[in-house]
Structures are given as C-alpha cells and as structure tokens.
C-alpha cells in the first residue's frame, strides 16, 4: 500500500473515531501513532510520540497560550466586560437595535483583552441578554447577536486561534495579531449595519433604548475603555513595538489586568484562584490538542499527502482563486462539525503548502481568511460552540431559535470574506508596517 493511501485511510479512521465521540486530541495522537508506526516502525513511532509531546509542551513559543488565556480569564472574572457594555450602551443604546449594536462594540473591545471567543460570548452574553430582554428585544436577534459577536474576538488580538495558526504555520504571532485588527473591525461594523437595518425595517426586533446625555457618556468612558486601552497598550503595544516576545506580552497583559483591576479594587484572591483554575483547564485542552496535532502532522508528512495535494493543485486547470474557494468550502463544511482550533491544527499541514507554495498566497492573509472561515463554525449548527454557550447563559431559549437568528450574521461574515479576498491589503497592510 502506498504511503499516501495509508495517510488517506488514517484520515478516514480519524473521522470515524471523532464521530464516535472520542476526544479529538486522543484521536489525532492515536491515528498519528498508528500510521507512523505502520510506515516506519513501532519503536520509531513510540520515540516520536514521546519526544514530540514533551518538546511541544515545553516549547517556549507555546507558553504564550496560558499567558493570554490567563489575561482573558482575569478580565472576565474581574468584570471588565460589564463596564465596557455600560459604555457602549450609553453611546448607541438609543438607536434601532442599539443594544445589539452596543453588544458588538463590547465584544470587539473585550476581545482586545481576551483571547477566547467562548469566554467573550459568555461574558458579554451574561451582561447584554438581560438588558435586551428588559427592552423587549426579539429573542432570536438578541441571542444570535451575542453568539456572533463572540466570534469577533477571534480576529481582534490577542486571539488564541491566531496563536495556534501561527504555531502550525510557523508564522509570527505578532504579525498575525496585527493582521486581524482591520478584519475584526470590519466584521464588527458589518454586524452593526446588519442589526441596524434589520431593526429599522422590523422595529419589533430591537426597539430603541433611552438616550444617554453627553455627561453620562463621558463618565462611562473613564470606566471600561480606559482599562482596556491601558492593558492593550502595555501588552500588545509592547509586542507590536518589538519590546516583548509574545509570551512576555501575555505575562505583561496579566500584570496589566491585575494592576488596573487592583487600582479599582475589583480583584481579590478568589478571582485570581478561579482565573488560574480556568486557565490551567483550557491550557491543558489546547496543549494536548497541539501536541496531538504535531504527532498527527508527522504521520501526514511521511504519508506524502501534502505533496500529493500540492501536485494535484498544480495540475488542476483551475485559476488559483477557484482552488482557494474550494479550500475555503472544505473548511466551511468541516468547520460545522469540528472545533476551530482542532480544525486548524488538523488541516494546516495539508492545505498551507498548496495555498502558499503552489498558489503563492501570503501566509498571513491565508491565516486571516482561514480563521474567519472557522469562526463561522462557532455559530453554525450542529456544533456551533458559541450558540451552546449563549443557550446556557440565556437558559430558556431553544437552540433552533438562536440558530434562526444567526443567518444575517453569517451573511455579514461572507461579505467580510469577499472583501478580504478582493482587497487582501485589509489583512496585510498593518503587518507590512513592522
């Protein structure tokens, strides 16, 4: 049997295992081990698995993951989201759909201190949903707007998904963070437009709230926005300026959140312990996934599937644009079933050589596009993680109702993707400055 055929069988077995609810990390490592073992020898595979797990877990570049996660959980538990929502609410709450629009701005701002889209959705959902309920917002619009808004955090730095893409694709995390800023703001703006036009056409969806005075708005600025700006400036500002490495930027962000919340007496030992506990749990999940993906990637590499894919792509009589569209379609379909992180780790060794080496696309641009496509997966059925989280926060809203409200936001993501494909500079301009 040819190595490529062994690789294809391995991929099929992997999908079979995860369809039977085996954790994705276990399935990747087991299939990677078995396949490598078949193509080389059992002792070589054992040695590879052992050394790859330890070297992955102890790689300095990966210690950035717990640092940015800790920064996000501290911000989450210290209630930074509440003050951000208060600000956004006072600015735009009086517009049609104003509370849902404020939710998008809050998600983007909170995303600037939190690297996890699920934590963003949970935080903002817990704050925004009761407010929207109070003003009789349509349940589909309110819940879907928070679920979709959480996905903005995937693009706004710091983003755990960008870190994982950077590791898998061997790209600079700092440049990826910069690349996500304009697309993140673009997506937030498109979401806002969608909500505004929907609420204007169907006023029952999002009745306007009371208008706040300028004094109230000014006072709100001093709360959430200043905190976020301080943390963002010292952490990511230092990274973009070249003062820190990504791990250092994460640790400085942790110190920054502790500092601004301590100054306002909003942090205590219990919040720190809870944040550490949440961080270790999330870190273990991500790092086991990364380690297993490395093992799986080693198997895929010796199966020569990436070479076969590259050959196939170069022999296709299709323009490069069509090949990229095909790859995006594959991501879109898989993203409906597989978690975003796992999907990126699983597929980058296969598709990155095609997109970058054969078709000549910029790996940073490709990263932004892929991250945006997999972000669609967090709000699409059947495994839209953010939707499940919002259902948990909302309590009594059926999943179908939330998914029904998601469509306009999916449309906004598709428009954002089209704009990124037509104008790649939206993603590559900021990284080109450093």
């Amino acid at each position, binding site marked *: 049997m040819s190595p490529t055929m062994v690789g294809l069988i391995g991929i099929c077995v992997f999908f079979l*295992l*995860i*369809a*039977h*609810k*085996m*954790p*994705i*990390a*276990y399935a990747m*490592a*087991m299939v990677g*081990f078995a396949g490598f073992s078949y193509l080389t020898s059992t002792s070589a595979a*054992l*040695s590879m*698995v*052992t*050394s790859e*797990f*330890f070297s992955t*877990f*102890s*790689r*300095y570049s*990966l*210690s950035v993951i*717990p*640092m940015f996660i*800790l920064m996000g959980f501290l911000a989450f538990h210290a209630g930074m989201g509440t003050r951000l929502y208060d600000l956004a609410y006072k600015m735009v709450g009086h517009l049609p759909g104003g509370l849902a629009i404020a939710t998008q701005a809050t998600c983007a701002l909170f995303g600037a201190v939190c690297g996890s889209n699920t934590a963003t959705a949970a935080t903002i959902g817990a704050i925004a949903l009761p407010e929207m309920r109070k003003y009789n917002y349509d349940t589909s619009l309110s819940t879907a707007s928070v679920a979709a808004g959480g996905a903005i955090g995937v693009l706004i730095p710091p983003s755990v998904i960008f870190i994982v893409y950077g590791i898998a694709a061997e790209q600079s995390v700092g440049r990826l963070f910069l690349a996500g800023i304009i697309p993140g703001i673009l997506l937030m703006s498109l979401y806002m437009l969608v909500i505004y036009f929907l609420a204007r056409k169907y006023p029952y969806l999002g009745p306007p709230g009371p208008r706040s005075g300028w004094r109230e708005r000014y006072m709100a600025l001093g709360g959430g926005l200043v905190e976020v700006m301080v943390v963002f400036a010292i952490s990511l500002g230092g990274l973009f300026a070249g003062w*820190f490495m990504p*791990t*250092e930027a994460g*640790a*400085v962000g*942790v*110190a920054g959140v502790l500092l601004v919340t301590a100054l306002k007496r909003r942090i205590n030992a219990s919040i*720190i*312990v809870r944040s*550490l*506990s949440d*961080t*270790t*749990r*999330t*870190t*273990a*999940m991500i*790092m*086991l*996934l990364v380690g297993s993906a490395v093992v799986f990637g080693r198997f895929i590499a010796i199966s020569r599937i990436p070479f076969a894919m590259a050959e196939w792509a170069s022999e296709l009589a299709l323009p490069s644009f069509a090949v990229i569209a095909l790859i995006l379609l594959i991501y879109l379909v898989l993203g409906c*079933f*597989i*978690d975003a*992180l*796992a999907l990126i780790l699983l597929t980058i060794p296969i598709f990155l050589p095609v997109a970058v080496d054969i078709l000549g696309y910029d790996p940073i641009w490709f990263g932004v596009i892929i991250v945006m496509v997999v972000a669609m997966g967090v709000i699409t059925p*059947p*495994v839209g993680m953010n939707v499940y989280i919002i259902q948990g926060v909302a309590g009594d809203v059926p999943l179908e109702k939330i998914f029904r409200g998601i469509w306009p936001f999916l449309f906004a993501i598709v428009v954002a993707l089209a704009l990124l494909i037509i104008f790649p500079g939206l993603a590559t301009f900021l990284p080109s400055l450093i």
Partner: protein
Amino acid sequence: MQVLEAVVIKFNRALDFLAGVILAFTAILIVSNILGRALLGRSILGTYEMVGFLTAAVVGLALSRCALENGHIAVGFIVEKFPPGAQKIINLVISIPAMAFLALVAYNLFAYGSRVAVTGEVSPTTQIIFYPFIYVVAFGFLALALTVFFNLLRQFVGGERI
C-alpha cells in the same frame, strides 16, 4: 463508588491547584525578567528555558482534571442521537484503546525521563536538569489514563456527576 469519586476529584483538584501555582510563578518569572532587563539592565538567567519547562509541568498536571470535567473537545452530536445503552457501548469501545494509548505514552515518557536522568542530559543554554519535568508530564499522562478509566467506570457503575 462515591468514596472513589471523592478521592479522584480531590486528587485531580490537587494536581490542578499545583498547576495553578506553577502558572502564577511562571507569569511572575516572566514579568520579573522584563523588569530586570528594563530597570537593572540584567535578565534572569535561564528564564527562556525555565518558562518552557514550567509550562510543560502546568500542562502535565492539568491534563487529568480537564478530562474529569470532559474538557477535551469531542464531537458528541452523532452519538447523542443513539439510545443510552448504545452510547455506553460506544464509549466502552472508544475509551479502552484511548486509555491503553495514554498509559503507553506515560510509560514511554517515564522511560525517556530515566534515560535523560542516566545520561545527565541538561538544557542546551543554561544547563538546567530537566528530567524531573519529563516525569511530571509522564505522571500527567498516567493520571489522564486513570481518569479516562474512572469516567468509564462512573458510566457503568453510576455515581454523582460533577
């Protein structure tokens, strides 16, 4: 079963607490290194390598608690459509090889740690003795394998959910 469950939960939480302490120490070490560099013009020797090893310890110690709380991502929507009896059988068929594999990884990591200890291998730049960190990760995989077994046992024998 309830006694066993209480023991497993306490054991995993203790490991996780230790992971949290190490994580906090890692963050303090990184920030101290930056401050030392910026204010005193001196870095803390070995920070780069130590942070990597400490992160490995954090991951190793937190693996099993993550599994205990079903934190490792799985795609459940297909299996959840099956009747409860079939779900139990599928879980049994899936968990046994996973447990065996994780135990095998743990065993080989212990063996790798022993080899590094015997040969006296140290980190390349600052000569840190790193085999204890390999043992911690090996121990983490062993605890993970045992937790997968415990989750399976809990499904068949019963007991309180967390």
